[in-house]
């Protein structure tokens, strides 16, 4: 048996780079970190109402899908969940974000396992609707709701 020699592996090239960002940020001036964060948070806050309306519209769309239960809707449900996570991820609304993330996990796992089940999606649509109705505030009831969603994710994650 002949073994052909392995081609010589290329040595890593390591370079010290001073980026244009580093040069510019080193210039005097600028604003304090606190001021920058405060201004950015104000910018987000000014868009909050519009985003909440968009979240509501997306959740309504999800609920409508659950009622119609179309075939091969896994990608659509995941895309809806992902869009909810994307938008909610900019606002300080932890219960909604957690529920939307849970929807993504569930959809992802059911798709991977080729075991789609609408009730798991419905549970998330109900939870998201309730959380929105509760103005995305945390409460004991909402915590229980989120615990229920965690159980759904764990259930869908179980092999077989």
């Amino acid at each position: 048996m002949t073994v052909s020699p392995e081609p010589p592996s290329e040595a890593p090239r390591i370079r010290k780079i001073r980026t244009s960002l580093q040069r510019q940020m080193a210039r005097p001036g600028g604003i304090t970190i606190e001021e920058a964060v405060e201004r950015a948070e104000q910018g987000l806050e000014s868009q909050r109402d519009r985003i909440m309306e968009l979240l509501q519209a997306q959740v309504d769309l999800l609920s409508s899908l659950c009622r119609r239960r179309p075939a091969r809707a896994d990608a659509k449900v995941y895309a809806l969940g992902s869009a909810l996570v994307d938008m909610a991820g900019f606002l300080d609304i932890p219960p909604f974000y957690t529920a939307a993330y849970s929807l993504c996990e569930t959809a992802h796992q059911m798709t991977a396992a080729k075991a789609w089940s609408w009730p798991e999606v419905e549970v998330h649509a109900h939870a998201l609707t309730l959380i929105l109705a509760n103005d995305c505030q945390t409460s004991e009831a909402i915590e229980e709701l989120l615990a229920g969603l965690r159980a759904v994710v764990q259930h869908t994650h179980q092999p077989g």
Partner: protein
Amino acid sequence: MTKTPDRINLAHSTVLLVDDQPTSLDLLSSIVQGFGVREQLKCPSAKDAVDLLQRRSVDLILVDCAMPEMDGYDFVRWLRREAVEPTRFTPVIMILGHAAHARVAKGRDCGASYIVAKPLTPSVLLKRIAWLGTHPRDFVEVETYVGPDRRVRNYGPPPGEEGRRSTDLSGELGEAVEANMDQDSIDMMLKPMKVNL
């Protein structure tokens, strides 16, 4: 390693934002505007961003990972391997929505400078930008990887900063948390011992 500064100067910088979701692009734009950047450019797709970067350079790129056609990972791979210098060295912060562990590793391995998972707060994003501006990292080029040195985890976040990961190391040496071991205890640990197998 220098401490993260208490001021930030982005008044001379151009930031490129890439996201296929118009709402997310608007929200990201609001944040960046608050940080006081001089100019921001928005692209609704990675392909548009590639076209733009072939014509001009920017100072920082914020890119969403999940996009149709060309996703954020492929975009960063193109940037690091095919873009001209100095564009290919541009710092990139990748933003993850539904962030499975494998996606974080994929983001690191495609050459992103930092990966930030949602929920995204201005404070977390600004810290990463400040680190990019003040803590240079070597640029590594090998057959299997092109991008900033990935061993940043070994060094931990800058002094005085807390990382987001539970396993993040500290950049500082703190006070000892327990008494020094005596030599007998050390010898006991190193001494060969007979064991029953």
